[in-house]
């Protein structure tokens, strides 16, 4: 099961991130998690939001370069070594992780993260087999 992430290209200059967030706010979309990757000249903002399609549309209308990307949202036990165990299974299958960032830590002893892998379908199968729970956008919102 895959989830949708909103990816936005932004130039590395003052106030740009705020303008992106402002467009999302105006669309009434809630941000659940984000990661900002930066280079010297530009950055890539990746967002998990309550309504990806709506956020993407609002951003495009606002003149931003935005796109929807498939990612995996993995829910696992919030305990020592559980992530390492999962990644061990992924590495064994020679799947490369492109990027990863945290999503939530729940009171109920669970934690979830966002993963983008070279072969997303294969990664999904491997992670499931290793005991991880994969969440859809709807499930993420209800966490």
């Amino acid at each position, binding site marked *: 099961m895959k989830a949708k992430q909103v990816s936005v*290209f*932004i*130039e590395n200059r003052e106030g*740009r991130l705020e303008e992106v967030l402002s467009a999302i706010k105006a669309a009434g979309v809630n941000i659940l998690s984000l990661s900002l*990757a930066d*280079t010297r000249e530009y950055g*890539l903002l990746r967002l998990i939001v309550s309504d990806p399609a709506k956020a993407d549309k609002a951003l495009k209308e606002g003149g931003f*370069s935005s796109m929807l990307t498939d990612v995996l949202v993995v829910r696992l036990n919030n305990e020592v070594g559980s992530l390492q165990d999962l990644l061990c299974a992924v590495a064994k299958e020679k799947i490369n992780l*492109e990027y990863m960032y945290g999503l939530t830590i729940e009171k109920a002893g669970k934690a979830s993260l966002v993963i*983008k892998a070279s072969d997303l379908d294969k990664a999904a199968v491997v992670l499931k087999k290793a005991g991880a729970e994969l969440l859809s956008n709807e499930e993420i919102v209800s966490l």
Partner: protein
Amino acid sequence: MIWNEKMETMSREEMRALQSERLVATVKRVYEKVPAYRAKMDEIGLKPEDIKGVEDLPKLPFTTKADLRDNYPFGLFAVPQDEITRVHASSGTTGKPTVVGYTENDIKMWSECVARCMTMAGVTKKDIVQVAYGYGLFTGGLGAHYGAEYIGATTVPMGTGNTQKLITLMKDFGATAIACTPSYLLHIAEVLKENGDLDKIKLRAAVCGAEPWTEDMRLRIEEILGVSAHDIYGLSEVMGPGVACDCKYHKGLHVCEDHFIPEIISPTTLEPVKEGETGELVFTTITKEGLPLIRYRTRDLTSINYEPCECGRTTCRISRFKGRSDDMLIIRGVNVFPSQVEEALLRVDGVSPHYMIVVDRVNNLDTMEIMVEVDEKFFSDEIKGLEALSVKIGKAVQQMIGLNAKIKLVEPRTIERSMGKSVHVQDKRKLV
């Protein structure tokens, strides 16, 4: 010193008579040998015998870069291919290069012209000349090389790209003259200064060309290096470097008029302008065998002065260039049309994005940055994907124009939209 006293100091009347005689012969020859010229003349009902002298020049149709392209590769040559001993080529606007051909006599004539120019800069057979233009299809390297050899100077074919080696040999050989682009020479000067090597060189003359430069830049080169710096002009279609050069008085560039007749026309009406006025420079070659050109539009804007010069030469002088009548850029000596960049971008994705070419001069070297808007067509949600995109665009541009450009990805709609003709170039170099 004057290389060819007879040709360079004859009276205006003698020059006009010589030009007329050669022009009549050239027109007759191209009419007979080159179908494209014959067709153009037939179209307006012009016969070779209608051209009796220089005064009839304005009757002839113009030749443009498009004509060279349309007759690619050898269509405008006036001799059979087996008489062509050399070809050069420059990048064209649509990917097809502009090809120029030379007979054995043409190469000799070219060498003679470059020899005249180098002599204006004070180069003699006693000099050691480093030629630091690019060798190859570009006319700069071989053109300057043959001219320096023709004088009998010790010629060192450096080429471009290895500044440290050039400096080492400049010191070790005791090189006294250099031929390269002015921006490259300024770069060499800065490196020499940084290394504390300025007092270890014997350089005294510099013949620079292939790109526009200012009088300030020329004076700066003279000041730093303690040389006499000269501006050599030429274009591959007409011949290559050596069409004109300035003498020690630096009051315009003496044209090798016995080989090339210059005219100045208005780029809008295409009519000749009044003597001394600025307009587009047009050349008619009157001795070239391989690729004679009739009224070739250079797109360079300048004016002509027919007064005799203090140096003793009577050949007319063109003033420093005041710009171009088209959108061509000259970057590090390479001719670049914005349309070529656009075509390269098209090749990357099939869709032309919004882009802006920013040309600047940093540490005396031309820089070229191409800003490309990243929209849905050019997007990756991974940094490595975006970096790969930059590299891909850079390679496509490099293949198209032969220059490395810095690719800068920018957000959509950040490049200014113009209402009329779109503006794709920002030239920040201060040249005029």
